């Protein structure tokens, strides 16, 4: 019970006021009270649904059918793992995540290196750059949809395509659609990576560079031995965060292409949505898919956290 540690010296001081046992008890009360709402919400909205979902994944239940759930064992999982379209979804999501995060990291880090010294208007620029990531992704998708329009959108116009016939169809061309989503994602989130890197860069003490310059160290050495190691932890946090978010991609893709054309940009989240809330409303199958996604995400996160700890520790 005395897992709750308090300041023992304080107890003696207040011994006259209140018996120490009583104060320990009231402390425990407070702790319980303070975490109670969080725990309750957690159980109701997270744990219970996860368990319920697990159960449903072994059934063939459909929300719209008036039939109670029937046990089908691992059938749903087998279907998922043998369906090429599911594998395609994972491949699409994975390649999207990889490409998008790589670009965000390169651009964000590059910008941070470029803009780390003070200059006129740095504060204002930093604020302005913050705006895109604060916007609702679905709304961002909607107005990029207009911008990507091959006939009236300004994206192609700015790129120099004035002839409607040669203008690339960013959202309609199966080869370009995923790139379109990548472009928007990179536009939104490169500043995030930049900000984190800037925070890391600004914490590097100047005397490290001064010592290096006295030792006649090359600019590359200074980058590799001073800049990079100091920035690495924050950079990795940024990459980890953005990768997890990329795997969850739903809003942007839904808004821009709804998974199309065909299923070229169908991420796992979109597929899951369509499975559960459109067509057959296949609750059982979608629960199984949800669990598969869960396992994949946990695996990927673990890999990343391990890499992060390793980079931090050394």
């Amino acid at each position, binding site marked *: 019970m005395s897992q709750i540690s308090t300041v023992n010296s304080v107890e003696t001081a207040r011994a006259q006021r209140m018996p120490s046992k009583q104060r320990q008890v009231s402390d425990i009360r407070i702790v319980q009270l303070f975490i109670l709402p969080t725990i309750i919400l957690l159980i109701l909205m997270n744990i219970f649904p996860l368990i319920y979902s697990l159960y449903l994944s072994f059934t063939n239940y459909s929300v719209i059918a008036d039939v109670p759930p029937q046990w089908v064992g691992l059938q749903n999982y087998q279907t998922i793992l043998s369906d090429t379209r599911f594998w395609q979804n994972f491949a699409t999501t994975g390649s999207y995540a990889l490409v998008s995060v790589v670009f965000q990291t390169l651009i964000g880090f590059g910008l941070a290196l470029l803009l780390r010294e003070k200059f006129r208007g740095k504060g204002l620029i930093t604020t302005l750059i913050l705006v895109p990531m604060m916007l609702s992704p679905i709304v961002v998708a909607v107005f990029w949809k207009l911008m990507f329009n091959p006939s009236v959108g300004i994206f192609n116009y700015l790129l120099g395509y004035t002839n409607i016939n040669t203008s690339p169809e960013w959202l309609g061309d199966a080869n370009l659609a995923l790139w379109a989503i990548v472009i928007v994602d990179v536009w939104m989130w490169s500043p995030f990576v930049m900000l984190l890197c800037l925070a890391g860069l600004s914490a590097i*003490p100047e005397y*490290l560079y*001064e*010592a290096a*310059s*006295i*030792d006649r160290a090359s600019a590359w050495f200074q980058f590799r031995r001073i800049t990079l190691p100091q920035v690495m932890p924050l950079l990795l946090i940024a990459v980890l965060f953005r990768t997890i978010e990329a795997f969850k991609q739903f809003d942007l893709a839904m808004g821009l292409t709804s998974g199309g054309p065909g299923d070229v940009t169908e991420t796992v989240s979109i597929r899951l949505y369509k499975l559960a809330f459109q067509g057959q409303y296949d609750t059982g199958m979608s629960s199984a898919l949800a669990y598969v996604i869960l396992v994949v995400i946990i695996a990927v996160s673990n890999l990343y956290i391990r890499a992060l700890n390793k980079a931090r520790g050394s």
Partner: protein
Amino acid sequence: MATIHLNQVEKKFGDQFAVKPLDMTIHDGEFIVLLGPSGCGKTTTLRMISGLEAVTSGQILFGERDVTWLHPSERDIAFVFQFFALYSHLTARENIAFPLQAQGESRDMVKKRVNEVAKMLNIEHVLNSRPGSLSGGDQQRVALARALVRRPAAFLMDEPLGALDAEFRDTMRAEIKRLHIDQHATTVYVTHDQIEAMAMGDRIVVMSNAVVQQAATPTDVYHNPANIFVARFIGSPGMNLIPARYQGGVLYFDGGSVYTVPDDWKSTLAADLGSDGRVIVGFRPEAAQVSSEGQLVAKTYANDLHGGYTMLHLELDKDQIVHIRTNRETSYNIGDLVHFDVNPTMVRFFHPETEMALTKRDNRS
């Protein structure tokens, strides 16, 4: 090895002077200490010598070479930073080897020199560790080794002991001084700790407010401070500085004490003071002696028993505390009146307005 000359070297940031025009010569093989409170310009001066700060005007010469606009790496100097500035991802050995490798020395030569220097500083056993796992003292030794390994023309050190625990500081102080003696290297050392400066320097340059207050040997700076700032800054506690009025060979203190001025000072005081005769009298705690026939009298304010000696704090007058060092191991009661004298060869005088020390007329040519 080289003599370093600073000619009218000045540093401004915007309109503010960090270092007012300064002339200084550092002799070959000398251990010179730049001493002063924070913000006085000592670190900026050191950084200008190193090239980490560009001068706003003036000239810096190493021997015959004008290095004023040379890159730090071209001046043949080594710099030791307060916070070590070691590369955390390299081992101690790699850190020390680095400057030599950058110069393109052969692998054998590098290995030999690193081992030599590590032996000198007793850090052979930590050579394969990373700086992060070393104590502060060892980290600073590695930083010193890195500085030594190139055998530069001059060593520049910016408060190298500032980040160390007290016990390390004493040890390292002795080690740095010993290294200097062994290497005969010109060393410019910055500190705000006057005890360090007194212990280590061949010469001390006392600075305050961007201006050099005095540049002299420790003995000189201690016994013949050039002005009130130096008198107060050097020594712990600093020199006692008491205002008084001089008239007809006698000093009149507030609080009633009267002191007969030594003969060799009389003509100086008569000539160099203003018509009101105001003067500041200075003497160190050990220059005073408790004596029942002492001319000066004050009330006991506090006693600090240090075992081998006692630091007596006496109240000469309201707000004027005098510190006297006695050999007695017993103390006086608070409020007791104590008579004391000041050794006539150790008394000093300062002008109340200019704050400069008065020099005896007989010594002037």
